């Protein structure tokens, strides 16, 4: 579990938790669909490190700041903004929780200890203690990252050298796709 302050929008933070071996995804899913959960649950196959969530979170705040959110709340907006398309159903399907997921990220804006306890009692699984890297100031955990999923979810086939590019290039392409969301002709 790690909390980050968002520098561009002071006073706000994002807490990220990684869970694995979760056994009650169905229960979480049903609560999620009823809209009872005040946090985002994110499919971790297309997430290479915490920065990806943090840039999306910055964008959530910037949209909240200057116009209106496209979805109901900041937490669903976070999932929506991870996706490069403006298709909402597709975004939730690709980046949100799926019924057969055993591992996922949970992201909470401005978390409180009550909320963290709620999560702890709801999710039956192991909370992963990820190693924070002081130098890169983030947590890079690629154990659940799948290159193929990322290429598909971010339609990276459009990039000419995607077949032979290295990881750092792939990440830069992902950021590129994320930031171009809704801004193409």
């Amino acid at each position, binding site marked *: 579990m790690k909390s980050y302050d968002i520098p561009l929008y002071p006073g706000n933070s994002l807490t990220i938790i990684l869970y694995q071996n979760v056994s009650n995804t169905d229960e979480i899913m049903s609560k999620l669909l009823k809209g009872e959960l005040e946090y985002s649950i994110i499919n971790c196959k297309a997430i290479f490190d915490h920065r990806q969530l943090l*840039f999306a979170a910055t964008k959530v705040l910037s949209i909240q700041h200057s116009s209106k959110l496209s979805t109901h709340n900041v937490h669903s907006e976070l999932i929506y903004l991870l996706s490069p398309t403006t298709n909402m159903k597709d975004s939730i399907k690709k980046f949100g929780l799926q019924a057969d997921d055993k591992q996922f990220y949970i992201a909470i804006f401005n978390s409180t200890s009550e909320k963290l306890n709620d999560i702890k009692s709801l999710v039956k699984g192991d909370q992963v203690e990820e190693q924070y890297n002081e130098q890169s100031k983030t947590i890079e955990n690629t154990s659940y990252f799948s290159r193929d999923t990322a290429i598909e979810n971010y339609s990276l086939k459009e*990039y000419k050298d995607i077949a032979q590019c290295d990881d750092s290039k792939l990440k*830069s392409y992902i950021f590129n796709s994320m*930031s171009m969301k809704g*801004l193409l002709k």
Partner: protein
Amino acid sequence: MSDLVKMEGITDLTKIGAELISQGAEAKTFKLNYFGMECIIKERFVKTYRHPTLDSKISNKRILQEIRSLNKCKKNGIDVPGLLFVDIVQTRIMMEFVNGITVKQFLYNNCENNYQNTQTPEIIRICREIGQQVCKIHDLNLIHGDLTTSNILLRTSTNNSTVFIDFGLSYTSTLAEDKAVDLYVLERAFISTHPNSESLFNEILQSYKDSSKNSPSVINRLDQVRLRGRKKLAFG
């Protein structure tokens, strides 16, 4: 739910440790370490002498044009800074920081005033690469609009490969005229910042010519543009 987050945003980027690295007529550029990543933030400022509606329209149009061009280049394998975050309302673009120096600086460092006698293989290679890359950009029907030696960087980590920056004045066009004017702008910039460097520019033109089948018509146009200057239509 909306009271969950605080709404105050940072307007003065230097307050969060951003360092102003350059200021042009259109925008300010800041360098910032954002979650461990070296970033460039390019922020267009409000011009008070323009009518507010017109100002926001122009800023909006240019920022969109810039990111679309960057995206197009990125997708087609031309090295440009990768986008990280775009805020249209605050006219802010966050981009990857490119570690390196400008071609202008590189030429100043390596050629002390005389560009004719000091043509090292490295300089020739860079000129050839510029020609090739500009040709690639033009083949995408993209006109950079402000090609100068200070808008081309040399990336240190990949042995001085060229990176194109500042697409703020770019636009799409298929006309040989526009591409020729783009080259003409580069030629003028080259000659005025680096006197007696004609041979280097010829190197660029040569590799431009060799890189695409569309080049000859552009080069022909360039000869006409040279005779009359870059404005085709003269007003009043």
